[in-house]
């Protein structure tokens, strides 16, 4: 990012290569259509470009980028006047590892996605970032604008709820 702010246009492509798949995976879990997720990734990077003058040298890019992405996601969901829904159709998320393991695991993934969709919004944001995008909790706290302890509580409750949902469905 420092290289891009410094005027190296090729650095933007590298940033895109590194972070776009992760962002798209997060968006796909939260939006029904793959095109919406892709569009949101593009918007996130356009905003990253517009905001590049705000980037501080000592800042970390991942929480910065994910905050933009999560804000756009929330706005997009608010605009569409609907609750964020789990991707019940398989055009949503295709996790090759899960699909390869067979139908049983695909069903488990669906169950988990439904459980994720049923969580309160603040828990869902934390779980999506931590569980799916692999963002450490201190960075998640930066992204959602809450204290680390508050984020830990949300994550703990969210995972507990998802495990309960999984247990109720009788998954492995």
């Amino acid at each position, binding site marked *: 990012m420092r290289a891009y702010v410094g005027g190296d246009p090729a650095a933007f492509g590298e940033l895109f290569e590194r972070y776009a798949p992760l962002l798209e995976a997060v968006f796909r879990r939260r939006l029904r259509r793959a095109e919406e997720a892709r569009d949101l990734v593009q918007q996130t990077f*356009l905003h990253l470009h517009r905001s590049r003058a705000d980037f501080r040298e000592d800042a970390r890019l991942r929480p910065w980028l994910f905050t933009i992405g999560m804000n756009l996601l929330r706005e997009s969901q*608010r605009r569409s006047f609907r609750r964020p829904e789990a991707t019940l159709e398989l055009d949503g998320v295709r996790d090759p590892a899960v699909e390869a393991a067979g139908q049983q*695991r695909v069903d488990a993934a669906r169950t988990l996605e439904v459980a994720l969709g049923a969580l309160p919004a603040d828990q869902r944001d934390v779980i999506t970032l931590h569980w799916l995008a692999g963002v450490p909790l201190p960075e998640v706290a930066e992204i959602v604008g809450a204290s680390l302890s508050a984020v830990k509580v949300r994550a703990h409750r969210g995972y507990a709820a998802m495990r309960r949902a999984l247990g109720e469905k009788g998954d492995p």
Partner: protein
Amino acid sequence: MDCLSALEARNAGRTTEPAVAAHLAACPLCRVGSRSPDLPAPPFEAVEQSVASERGIRAGLRGLPTRARLGLALGVVAALLLATFTFARRAERPLPGVQLLGGLLLTVGAGVLLRENLLPLQAPRRPGRQQLLVALGLALPGAIALLPLPEALRQGALPGVAPSAATRACLIMGCLVAGLVALFLRALDRGAHRSAWAAVTAAAAGGMVGALALDLHCPITTVDHLLVGHGSAGLALGLVYGAVVVALRRRAA
């Protein structure tokens, strides 16, 4: 080991620890959540085109650092108020203390709303409930200001000027100043203009600046006139702005 600890260890790259590895392998929740490293990148061309089309004055304005954008917005507000003050009709100040306090409150309120409106997207947003409460808090004084509307249209306070005409003139001037502020905020906007929160804060900030400008300009001090003519510019603009935002959203959808 619980899921939270296991996933936090995974996120920190400590997947080789036996307890972590055992949990990640056994727990269906953690297993499904593990991201696929071979997910392909989405096409870059569309982003490249959008970035390439970022040219012109507006792109230059919104590409400025947030502090510079805020400084510019404050500069425009100061210029509008200075222009109003220079061409002010008002000579006397019957209630200087109250007017000073009102002016101070409006200035602080407008400053906070300008900051809120220009908040960059990399800053976490307030929860929707908080935003709704603030929006209701801003709409309530505007709605109360409209209560004495019939009275304000009947009574006169300025010799030679019809009361309804004076009230209407002030409302129009307030909306004009407010509109200029909102338009400039729109030019500085990095793309969040379609959000309802951006519309609310822009209209309210503009309305407060409009009320400040009228306070410098208009000699009428009757409560009805002040409420309807001066106080409701933000609400009027907010309603128009809201209608435009909704129409734009429908068109985009």
